[in-house]
């Protein structure tokens, strides 16, 4: 009791007992237990701390504590130029850095009024979808590992490894890519990279089916997750649950379809939905999304036009390296953009993409300077973790592990 009060802030303890006003901590500790899970715990996927109030093994209260990975990215964005911030977006959702790059440049382009050429937009679509596949593969693998099926993790990471190899060819980095640029992408997609993407997509579906076979016929896995952590459609919308988690509750909402950006309106794809809203539905939904993403990538490869990958706006788009070294004008522009930034007009915009975890948006306020006056990151994981108390109450401790795995929180993004 003393130990608990010494180590935990009184306000957190108050929140934990919020269900009953007259209830004190002493009363609670008579027949209940308060368990601290995390921040360093293999099942919390990073540094998430949960305070659980237990009656026997059943959870009657849960308070998540965030901030163990808070690096102040919003503050940093206010002090650096729009170009400088691209590598920092890699570190938000570090499982799918490419999607974050795309989200950031689309927001800045909307603010500055730049439109990237068609080929660049198709490349962006391709990398965003591959990033979604990579992210879902990690989720499926680690989720299965959390509930005891270890092999799947190795199988899905083997597939993800191939995507990392594609990143390597495409932009020279496997993990923190920073591949997109304002007004285009860093360099054109080489034919060998595109050939590798095509090879990957062709062999991906049979391999995914194998993974699925391992899990769907596994009685222990199904029984651990079926009906666990269910949430209703109304609660999910009210709690701003987003992305695959929301679609698993029966809400057919996907920004790629509802608010099309890039060239998603030219692509034919389905939005899978499930109605159960439990861990099993969230797992099935991610498998289906992987297949849909593969379908999108295949169409993108077919439809990808030839042409430039940089917008022709020298005052705002960084010139290519070989031009800087040979042409005077380009050298001047490079100097001005790097030192003073691109100075978008005074105004504010919000742009969101359907990231692998949900709506990933940037709210930018410009005062006409080289750096944003305000940058707000609307991160999907932050809003998904908010529903955690709602999901875990009434379940067992072992289910908490499954539920955290199934909503797929990435703390880099939740804590910013």
């Amino acid at each position: 009791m003393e130990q608990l009060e010494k180590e935990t802030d009184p306000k957190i303890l108050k929140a934990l007992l919020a269900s009953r006003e007259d209830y004190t901590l002493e009363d609670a500790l008579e027949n209940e237990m308060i368990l601290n899970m995390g921040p360093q715990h293999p099942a919390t996927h990073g540094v998430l701390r949960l305070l659980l109030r237990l009656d026997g093994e059943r959870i009657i209260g849960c308070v998540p504590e965030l901030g163990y990975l808070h690096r102040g990215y919003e503050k940093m964005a206010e002090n650096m130029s729009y170009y400088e911030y691209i590598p920092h977006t890699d570190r938000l959702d570090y499982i799918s850095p490419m999607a974050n790059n795309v989200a950031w440049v689309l927001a800045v382009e909307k603010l500055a009024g730049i439109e990237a050429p068609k080929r660049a937009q198709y490349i962006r679509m391709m990398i965003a979808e591959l990033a979604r596949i990579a992210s879902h593969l990690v989720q499926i693998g680690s989720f299965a590992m959390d509930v005891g099926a270890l092999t799947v993790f190795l199988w899905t990471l083997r597939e993800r490894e191939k995507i990392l190899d594609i990143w390597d060819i495409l932009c020279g980095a496997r993990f923190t890519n920073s591949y997109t640029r304002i007004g285009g992408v860093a360099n054109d997609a080489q034919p060998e990279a595109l050939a590798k993407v095509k090879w990957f997509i062709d062999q991906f579906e049979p391999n995914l089916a194998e993974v699925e076979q391992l899990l769907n016929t596994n009685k222990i896995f199904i029984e651990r997750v079926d009906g666990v952590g269910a949430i209703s459609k109304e609660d999910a919308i009210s709690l701003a649950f987003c992305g695959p988690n929301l679609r698993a509750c029966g809400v057919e909402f996907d920004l790629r379809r509802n608010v099309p950006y890039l060239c998603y309106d030219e692509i034919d794809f389905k939005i899978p939905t499930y109605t159960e809203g439990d861990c099993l539905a969230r797992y099935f939904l991610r498998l289906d999304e992987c297949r849909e993403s593969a379908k999108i990538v295949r169409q993108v490869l077919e439809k990808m036009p030839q042409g430039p990958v940089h917008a022709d706006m020298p005052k705002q788009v960084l010139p290519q390296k070989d031009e800087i070294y040979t042409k005077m004008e380009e050298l001047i522009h490079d100097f001005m953009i790097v030192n003073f930034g691109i100075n978008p007009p005074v105004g504010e915009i919000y742009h969101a993409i359907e990231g692998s975890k949900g709506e990933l948006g940037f709210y930018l306020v410009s005062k006409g300077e080289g750096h944003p006056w305000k940058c707000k990151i609307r991160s999907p994981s932050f809003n998904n973790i908010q529903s955690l108390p709602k999901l875990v109450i009434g379940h067992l401790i072992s289910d908490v592990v499954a539920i955290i795995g199934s909503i797929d929180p990435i703390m880099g993004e939740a804590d910013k």
Partner: protein
Amino acid sequence: MNLKELIPQKLKEKFPSVEFELTDYRDELTIKFDKKSVVEICTFLKSDSDLEFSWCSDVTAIDWATRKNRFTVVYNIFSMKHNFRLRLKADVDESDCTIDTVTSIWKSANWQERETYDMYGIKFTNHPDLRRMYMPEEFEYHPLRKDFPLMGIPGSLPLPKK
């Protein structure tokens, strides 16, 4: 009828005494009003059957540093029925750094307002659980205010208790 005309028209009909300031920039509608009426307006926007802004995507604030009304609280709401995004704004002055909470309307505003409180020090009255979101509870400053230095303040983050 276009939603960009419908929403202001409906709001003016429903709240004749409130002044609305409309901005349409890059095809995004922003509506600014006095902070006193925030709860009524949000309730109306969510419950009106023609609008149904059922999804509160984000709550944040802007620190203007030198302006008279130093802060602006920004609500980013979305209508799944119309696929329409709307931004609501309300000015908050530093001398009276409070605004009513919208947690009763959108549950998701709970954490989003806590984050805004943590980062800007704007108090949301009637909030059920107004704690800091990221920073430790004993931290005195609000890091996203413009007068908080980028490098931080030495000694402001206490070491963990032994």
